């Protein structure tokens, strides 16, 4: 289904877009171009790099489709690396002369006689002259060597930056050749389209999967003896026709392209998504999962708010009933192959409903400066050590993405990953161990499990819930109150009981809390304002009267509730005066 869905997407794009990919071409980013005149004389280099963020990256051009080469000598048509195009020996391999000859021979094979196009003649004249001293002396040459990318040709008189391979006559010829390519061997049944077609031995590489080799990887590959069956080799093991192979690889490479808006990164899985027909969801989807870039981005939150309010205001068409098929594919790299992490095939309506559910589950009361909705990236990175995205457990990311799309409960490993981070980290105000993202995740895991398995216990809520009498939650609240007492008694303290006792209090309360309660008395005695003392005492009493005893151990779920209770209580302390007044008014009314 996967290859088939990609092939259908390719066909949809070909038939609809004006700038659909012409047959026989692909997109490639080139940093430099050789400029020639009509006689094939070298005019100079042209630097085509663009500023992408902080780095300079080459511009994306349309070039003839690349040939697959691993160790042999095979040249691309009219573009290639420095060794093939100029015979410049980068690594002293000694094969540069052969490669260069092959490059020229490839052009000749395609354009058998001179005079088809002026550009081709110029290129051939330049290459056969063989005198590249002027190139090596050029000012840009050292940079080109350092960049070590691909290079192509441009005629000085052509407008803009049209490559020789993009000239009208050349393009016509290449497209023509791509159509009638007879193919080798006999036709077999293609398992993607069901039609008879020439089988493809080696599939085009899929580039753009984060973490894969730069030369790309293959989904369909049989590069070890263990994968070959019934004496078939390579692509014969899974007959895919030329049409289908071209279709799905082009579609996938486009979706994974650098400037594609239809991809997100979920942990180590590069995820692409598309709908069966052109749909706005294709544009929205990325915004739900990508990091808004540090600070709160107004548009992203607006979008998510719109999701919630649209049914009420009726502004946008209700997407939840939309039955357009929607596909999500997660790919992760493994050396020269690409593994499929997950595959989701559903409708737009289902996806929207599940996303909404996910955001509703994650909602937790938070400080005023924090964003209302957290992206998946931010949630996952809170489970990684040192907050680095490469430390995210790969299985966790894939499982979480699948849980969100399918509306399943989150993986249990998520809860233990978050709690182990909370216990392991040394807290400070800039980087709290019980952070907003982590508490969101814990709350989401607990709430979803309750809904999925139909448990009828009271689960944690968005903000402080004074009626919740779960021991884990109450102990978390108590811990927060005790910490506040300590902070109020000793202003400017560097390390509070949170740093020393959090882990033990969370896991084995009976061992820790009696001591903390004794300490609290000393803190209260030291406190200067009497009104604060009574207020704190009241709070402690309120919590303690619901607690029967201090349990010896808290299970994983209860430790989660401990963290949530702690967070809710602390947030409650720092609520602004206006918010508190507003709440009191609401309660009174």
């Amino acid at each position, binding site marked *: *289904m996967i290859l088939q869905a990609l092939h259908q997407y390719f066909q949809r794009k070909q038939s609809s877009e004006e700038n659909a990919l012409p047959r026989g071409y692909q997109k490639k980013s080139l940093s430099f171009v050789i400029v020639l005149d009509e006689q094939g004389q070298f005019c100079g280099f042209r630097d085509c790099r663009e500023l992408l963020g902080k780095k300079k990256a080459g511009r994306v051009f349309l070039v003839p489709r690349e040939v697959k080469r691993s160790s042999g000598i095979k040249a691309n048509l009219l573009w290639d690396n420095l060794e093939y195009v100029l015979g410049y020996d980068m690594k002293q391999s000694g094969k540069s002369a052969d490669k260069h000859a092959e490059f020229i021979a490839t052009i000749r094979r395609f354009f058998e006689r001179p005079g088809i196009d002026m550009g081709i003649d110029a290129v051939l004249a330049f290459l056969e002259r063989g005198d590249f001293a002027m190139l090596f002396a050029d000012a840009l040459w050292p940079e080109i060597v350092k960049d070590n990318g691909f290079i192509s040709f441009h005629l000085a008189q052509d407008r803009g930056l049209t490559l020789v391979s993009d000239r009208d006559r050349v393009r016509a010829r290449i497209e023509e050749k791509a159509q009638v390519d007879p193919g080798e061997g006999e036709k077999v049944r293609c398992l993607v389209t069901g039609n008879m077609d020439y089988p493809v031995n080696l599939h085009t590489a899929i580039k753009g999967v984060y973490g894969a080799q730069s030369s790309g990887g293959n989904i369909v590959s049989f590069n070890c003896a263990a994968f070959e069956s019934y004496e078939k080799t390579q692509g014969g093991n899974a007959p895919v026709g030329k049409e289908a192979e071209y279709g799905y690889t082009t579609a996938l490479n486009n979706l994974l392209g650098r400037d594609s808006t239809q991809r997100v990164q979920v942990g180590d899985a590069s995820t692409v998504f598309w709908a069966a027909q052109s749909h706005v969801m294709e544009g929205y989807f990325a915004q739900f999962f990508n990091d808004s870039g540090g600070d709160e981005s107004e548009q992203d939150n607006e979008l998510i708010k719109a999701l919630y309010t649209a049914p009420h205001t009726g502004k946008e068409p209700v997407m939840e009933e939309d039955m357009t098929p929607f596909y999500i594919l997660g790919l992760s790299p493994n050396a020269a192959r690409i593994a499929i992490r997950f595959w989701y095939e559903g409708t737009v309506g289902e996806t929207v409903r599940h996303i909404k559910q996910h955001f509703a589950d994650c909602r937790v009361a938070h400080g005023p400066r924090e964003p209302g909705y957290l992206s998946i990236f931010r949630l996952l990175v809170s489970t990684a050590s040192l907050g680095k995205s490469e430390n995210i457990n790969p299985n966790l990311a894939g499982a979480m993405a699948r849980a969100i799309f399918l509306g399943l409960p989150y993986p249990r490993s998520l809860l233990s990953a978050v709690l182990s981070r909370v216990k392991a980290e040394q807290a400070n105000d800039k980087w709290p161990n019980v952070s907003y993202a982590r508490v969101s995740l814990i709350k989401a895991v607990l709430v979803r499990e309750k809904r999925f398995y139909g448990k009828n216990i009271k689960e944690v809520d968005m903000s402080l819930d004074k009626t919740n009498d779960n021991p884990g939650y109450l102990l978390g609240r108590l811990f927060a109150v005790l910490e506040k007492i300590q902070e109020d008694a000793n202003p400017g303290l560097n390390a509070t009981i949170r740093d020393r006792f959090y882990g033990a209090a969370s896991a084995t309360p009976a061992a820790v809390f009696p001591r903390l309660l004794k300490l609290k008395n000393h803190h209260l005695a030291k406190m200067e304002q009497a009104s604060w003392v009574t207020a704190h005492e009241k709070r402690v009493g309120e919590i303690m009267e619901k607690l029967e005893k201090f349990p010896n151990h808290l299970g994983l779920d209860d430790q989660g509730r401990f963290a949530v209770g702690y967070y809710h209580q602390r947030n409650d302390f720092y609520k602004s005066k206006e918010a508190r007044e507003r709440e009191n008014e609401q309660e009174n009314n």
Partner: protein
Amino acid sequence: MNNGTTRSGPFRLRVWGDNACFTRPEMKAERVSYDVMTPSAARGVMEAILWKPGMQWRITRLDVLNPIRWASVRRNEVSAKASTHTVNFFIEEKRQQRAGLILRDVAYIIHSCIELTSEAGMTDSIVKFQEMFLRRAENGQCFTMPYLGCREFTASFELVKMKDPLPLALAETRDLGWMLHDMDFSCSPPRPRFFRAVMEEGVIQVPELESQEVRR
């Protein structure tokens, strides 16, 4: 000996397991399973219970009972295999870890029939094989442990007798694309055959081998 019928009545076998992986041929390196059981895997399960040279199994229908759920796992697999050409190799050097997208909690009902082959002897008859199968399935006997796609995913089976009600299939209708029907062992080397699998209310009708729908 019953010359009139060359095909037995349909048997219904309920098969279930914790995991299954009916590997797609195009994604054999990093395994991705088909959404449902393939007819060739169903044939494998039936053959594990009963097989004689004089008979062959024909799968006619597959019912999907459980919702289709996936799991992504990483498993230790090997990259080389022994054959008549290899002299020796040390398997510990050929281990690799590969990802796989497998199915979880599967349950199917396989509807199948027995047919006699050209190697059926004088004493072989449809009724004989029929009775043998019914007895073995009832007792839970099998030559080898039946499995769901990969040998490590063992299958449990239970006969659904004709008079018992058929368990309800999944209420889903989906087009599953081109699916592997089986391998055609009459050619050498064997060639795969494909058919367009459509699941209607959880039921997949498997076309006849020689019919138009099975493309070779």
